[in-house]
């Protein structure tokens, strides 16, 4: 099924590619200056308040994903990682910027093309419970998209579902269950299986292993690795677990309050991080004999509602200088593949 699936995914991509032929070295996906904002207040309270009415959840973020690449997104909770994923799926309409897949800007895509695109792009949602219909059994939830998009002949649907569940570490006996009858980690595996049955070319996996015990987690991470190496699937992997990110990802982007602050090849990021926030984040991982008492304090954080103009990390940054107050630093390439947004990176 996986072989067949992968060829199918390739043919889907080919359909998009027809629109604009591209060579294999161009990225699969290019996000440019993506800005997604949400309304904080309406009507009277908006008129009366002095603060801003909008929250920029994703603030002019740019990055690329190559074919067969696993890009990790890590960072502050609430920094916009899920919002980026949902914008790529076009569940959120960006305020500005572009998301180009195989030469086509999906932010301008019509309904029919969008349907085709969504079949080839799958998201494993951070909250699996709300992404599954509570009135449908696991079987129905997995069958429906397969039949709708005619992914395989109806006679093979059941076999395909069983195989996807098994590979995701869940016995097919759970097919008859409703979502509320499953444990957190079992639901998470259903969500993964559902995404994989579709043989996607690109998967946005939002914290897909956070609710799994370490043994099952190992199984799922190995599965993702196989899908990537054998079939060249591209993955955006959102996680708070830095060790997981290091194991699976080729490159990692670090987010802080709506901004991408650093992006680099995985080993370079872990061994030579440059942004002070990245350093703080990495400082908390893998320390031998780590105890709570020595842990650092989050301290005063950036307040997105107070509309600061300077660097988002200013309030917490141990390296800040006056210039940092003036504007958020632009993204700068310091080495091939290593970009950073910090005025003072040379000092670190």
């Amino acid at each position, binding site marked *: 099924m996986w072989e067949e699936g992968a060829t199918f995914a390739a043919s889907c991509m080919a359909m998009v590619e027809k629109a604009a032929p591209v060579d294999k070295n161009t990225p699969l996906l290019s996000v440019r200056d993506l800005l997604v904002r949400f309304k*904080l*207040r309406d009507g009277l309270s908006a008129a009366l308040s002095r*603060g801003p009415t909008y929250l920029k959840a994703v603030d002019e973020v740019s990055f690329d994903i190559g074919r067969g690449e696993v890009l990790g997104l*890590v*960072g*502050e*909770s*609430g920094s916009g990682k*899920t919002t980026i994923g949902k914008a790529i799926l076009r569940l959120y309409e960006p305020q500005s910027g572009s998301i180009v897949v195989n030469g086509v800007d999906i932010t301008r895509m019509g309904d029919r093309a969008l349907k085709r695109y969504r079949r080839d792009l799958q998201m494993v949602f*951070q*909250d699996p*419970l*709300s992404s599954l219909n509570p009135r449908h059994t696991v079987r129905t939830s997995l069958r429906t998209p397969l039949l709708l998009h005619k992914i395989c002949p109806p006679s093979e649907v059941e076999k395909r579902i069983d195989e996807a569940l098994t590979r995701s*570490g*869940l*016995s097919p*006996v759970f097919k008859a269950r409703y979502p509320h*009858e*499953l*444990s*957190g980690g*079992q639901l998470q595996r259903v969500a993964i299986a559902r995404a994989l049955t579709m043989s996607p070319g690109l998967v946005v996996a939002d*914290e897909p292993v*956070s*609710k*799994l*015990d*370490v*043994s*099952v*987690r*190992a*199984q799922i*991470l*190995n599965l993702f*690795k196989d899908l990537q190496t054998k079939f060249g699937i591209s993955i955006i992997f959102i996680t*708070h677990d*830095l*060790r*997981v990110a290091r*194991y699976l990802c080729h490159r990692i982007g670090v987010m802080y309050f709506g901004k991408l602050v650093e992006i680099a090849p995985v080993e370079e990021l872990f061994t030579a991080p440059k942004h002070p926030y990245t350093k*703080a*984040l990495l400082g*908390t*991982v*893998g320390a031998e004999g*780590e*105890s*709570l008492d020595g*842990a*650092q*304090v*989050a301290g*005063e*954080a*950036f*307040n*997105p*509602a*107070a509309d600061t103009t300077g660097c988002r990390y200013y309030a917490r940054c141990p390296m800040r200088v006056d210039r940092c107050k003036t504007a958020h630093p632009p993204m700068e390439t310091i080495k091939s593949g290593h970009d950073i947004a910090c005025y003072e990176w040379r000092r670190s």
Partner: protein
Amino acid sequence: MSDATLTVRNLATGFKMGGRVMNVVREVNLEVRKGEVLGLIGESGSGKTVTGMSILRLLPDNAVTEADTLDFLGTDLLSLSAERFREMRGTRLAMVFQDPVGAFNPSKKISWHLKQVFERAGTKSPEHAARAKNWRQASIKLLADVGIPHGANVMRQYPHQLSGGMLQRTLIALVLVFEPDLIVADEPTTNLDNIVERQILRLFRDLQKRLDCGFLYVTHDMTIAAMLCDRIAVMYAGSIVEIGPTKQIFSDPKHPYTQGLLASALALDTKTERLQEIPGELPNPGNLPPGCLFEPRCKFAKAECRAKPPAMTDVGGGRNVRCVLYGHG
């Protein structure tokens, strides 16, 4: 007087499904002492959440729970009326749910939830009542404590407008309002980055030290388990297979499942091409083996293991293991 906050003896829970009861948790014995963090780790689907929910009577109607003892600070939870139980749960017993979304009313703003909780906690003591009067300010302070500096804004939002981690922290803030005697925390920090996570763990530590609050702490994160828990219980397929002091469990795991789990956990700390899984098929709840539940995957399995489920054996040093390798007690 014992120093136990919670004593659970022989807890079993099943669900009525299609005319029969499917047992998912059996023979659970545990004790959470005053000011102690008891970690609950183990297989996904092994019954950690169901155990917590059974103790707090939060399971759906088709659940059947039985126990010999469920004692909470001298109160017999089994004989408590539904109404008294609800009072208890709102003030002295609390749960941080694994699924934060489900814990909120989607049509109400965050401020509504906080107000409710402050009013409820206000019945506990005059200090709590005083704080309930100023619930707005107190809420903003509390949200800041859990790492949300723009609390005033967040209070105006609906649950679906918060990120996964913000919702999780808001739920923790709601529980902190009560200052309960026992918190069942079900993977409370899975959606949080390391820095904020440490901050939350310190808040828990503070409750534990300042108010002698006990925790039943469910987690998949071995680093946190090692850091936060005094003792640890390991679950597999509905049973506790090993329980004991944290240090000993980590330095010398006895049960073959615990050994496999810790080996998988360590694999991520070293640079490796492929992660180690515990080989073999995961347990199928409809078709469990007659003897030891781990037997089909266990490399030490022998005929004896298939005969009947092994009993919990005291191996000394406050440790108990459910495995024939350690004798029959």
